[in-house]
């Protein structure tokens, strides 16, 4: 037998032993931490939104009643006359004079009966004409059901903002769904590969334009257009219709791309079966392919709605500044995102009412979009199972 490498060069038995590869370990740890970072981001978002929202709901806000006390009172007076201007407070409410908090126990005509030095504040004398502030505690319930948003006046109902957001998103979907779906059907069922390769990039350019440019477009093009069609008196300068239509254009590529993917995922055999039964191209597309791709299209619509709800710059520029509870699309109404942008522009001081309210609205926005995104993923997953 000839000498051979394998037998001649016997390796020490330990040579296969696992070595401590420090570099590999360190690198793997670093890579893992980078992967984990996204979890920190989510936790950070939830923690900060939650914490500041709790501050928003857990703190007394002071509303100016414009009602002054008539005469000066001493540190121990437990009843005093109030002027007849301004808003009345009702018994059981906490009121504030200067820095002292008082519990209003009873009201008789223009006389307030109070408990002094409430919540450990120091009873002090107050001068005549001191304005009474009324304590308001924003509750989650009021936040979700109130129809007026004016935090500095003690009104904490998010509905006007939510309503505007939903109106804008609704209009956007009304624009984007038919257009996007029709474009997707054309691209996937009718267009030649060449036509598709030229048309798709055009839609993709629409997706690449920054949203602030869409805002500019809404304000300087869409709004004047609407006003010239429906009349200057009907359509306000800022209105949800213009913002909604432009957001519809903005999410159009999203709807058409995802829908087209869904249509393309429908197996050829299904189409061939339909043609084989004598169906026309339209009948195949609408009766066979479209229903088969339904869940994919549904996911596209949901993602698009989520995108529209979170869209900010268009509404900040075109929908109006100032919450308004209106169902008229031609009137100005501020959306949730628009409101956040408006009040945070400039130096917003920490722990102020506005600062905290941003987080409460942000939390609501986050929950809404997250729920929609998770829902769409669920639908897509189910959809995949059908054809794979």
């Amino acid at each position: 037998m000839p000498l051979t490498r394998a037998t001649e060069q016997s390796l020490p038995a330990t040579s296969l032993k696992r070595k401590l590869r420090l570099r590999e370990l360190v690198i793997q740890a670093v890579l893992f931490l980078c992967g984990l970072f996204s979890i920190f981001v989510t936790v950070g978002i939830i923690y900060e939104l939650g914490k500041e929202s709790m501050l928003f709901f857990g703190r007394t806000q002071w509303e100016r009643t414009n009602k002054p006390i008539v005469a000066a009172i001493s540190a121990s007076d437990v009843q005093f006359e109030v002027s007849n201007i301004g808003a009345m407070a009702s018994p059981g409410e906490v009121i504030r004079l200067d820095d002292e908090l008082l519990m209003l126990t009873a009201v008789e005509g223009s006389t307030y009966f109070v408990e002094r030095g409430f919540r450990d504040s120091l009873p002090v004398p107050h001068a005549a004409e001191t304005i009474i502030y009324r304590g308001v505690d924003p509750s989650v319930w009021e936040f979700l059901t109130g129809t007026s948003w004016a935090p500095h006046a003690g009104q904490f109902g998010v509905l006007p903002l939510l309503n505007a957001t939903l109106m804008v998103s609704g209009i956007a979907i009304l624009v984007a769904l038919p257009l996007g779906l029709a474009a997707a059907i054309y691209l996937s069922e009718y267009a030649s590969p060449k036509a598709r390769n030229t048309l798709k990039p055009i839609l993709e350019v629409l997706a690449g334009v920054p949203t602030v440019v869409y805002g500019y477009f809404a304000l300087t093009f869409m709004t004047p257009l609407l006003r010239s069609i429906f009349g200057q008196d009907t359509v306000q300068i800022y209105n949800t219709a213009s913002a909604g239509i432009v957001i519809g254009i903005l999410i159009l590529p999203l709807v058409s791309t995802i829908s087209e993917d869904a249509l393309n995922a429908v197996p050829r055999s299904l189409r061939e079966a339909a043609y084989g039964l004598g169906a026309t191209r339209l009948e195949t597309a609408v009766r066979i392919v479209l229903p088969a791709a339904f869940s994919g299209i549904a996911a596209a619509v949901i993602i698009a709605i989520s995108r529209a709800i979170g869209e900010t710059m268009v509404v900040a520029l075109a929908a109006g500044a100032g919450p308004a509870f209106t169902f008229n699309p031609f009137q100005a109404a501020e959306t949730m995102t628009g409101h956040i942008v408006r009040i945070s522009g400039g130096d917003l001081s920490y722990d102020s009412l506005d600062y905290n309210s941003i987080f409460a609205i942000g939390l609501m926005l986050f929950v809404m979009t997250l729920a929609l995104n998770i829902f769409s993923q669920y639908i897509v997953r189910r959809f995949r199972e059908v054809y794979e």
Partner: protein
Amino acid sequence: MTDTAPTATATAAIETNDLSIYYGSFQAVRDVNLDIQPNRITAIIGPSGCGKSTVLRAFNRMNELIPSVNTTGEVLFRGQNIYKPDVDPVEVRRHIGMVFQKPNPFPKSVYENVAWGARINGFKGNMDELVHSSLQSAALWDEVKDKLDQSGLSLSGGQQQRLCIARAIAVRPDIILMDEPCSALDPIATLRIEELMRDLAKDYTIIIVTHNMQQAARVSDRTAFFSLSEDGKRAGMLMEYGDTKTMFTRPEKKITEDYITGRFG
């Protein structure tokens, strides 16, 4: 054909004891006991799906790259079970190299293709010489000596496969595993690789999976025949193992004979 008839050697290059391999809960290979002899070419044959590739990859722990795989039993390489927890799969693969079914050179220069494995394995000597000798051993030197800095992908399929062999040899392994190395090649390229294998067998232990009976008969010293278990569970089992000549002329089992003569599968 080999001139030195294989004789039973005392030390096996690889020895398996009750090797079973699972993909998730599916048992792909059952209770294989096999000893591969050093400096011989061992062919693994058998019908498609009987677990040949799976067994081959078990010899250098390549199966671990597939997440669901689970291996039981032992694979002894020079008396050491390579599946012991303290064994490093990277070390195992440095001793047991592999050539794949489809030529897969790196998208780098011919030179780099050969040099890279040696470099990461800490080779300190003269790299030019190593590249030269490896390419020469792979019978490729004359064809590529003027194209060392061209991309490995610019070579023909047969040249690419020889480049992959050169790349494997450059690491100076003890054993080279080849999984259907000629299945993507034309007959002439196949012939060259077969000649090459006979040459390499002087220095290396080679295990080759092949679907081609003639190839197994032409190049191998010993042959292992695998087939699916007949209990309906479709697990791959070692049916017969012995000298190639014996096996192709006087197989012990009926099923082996059926397969070799093409009456099967």
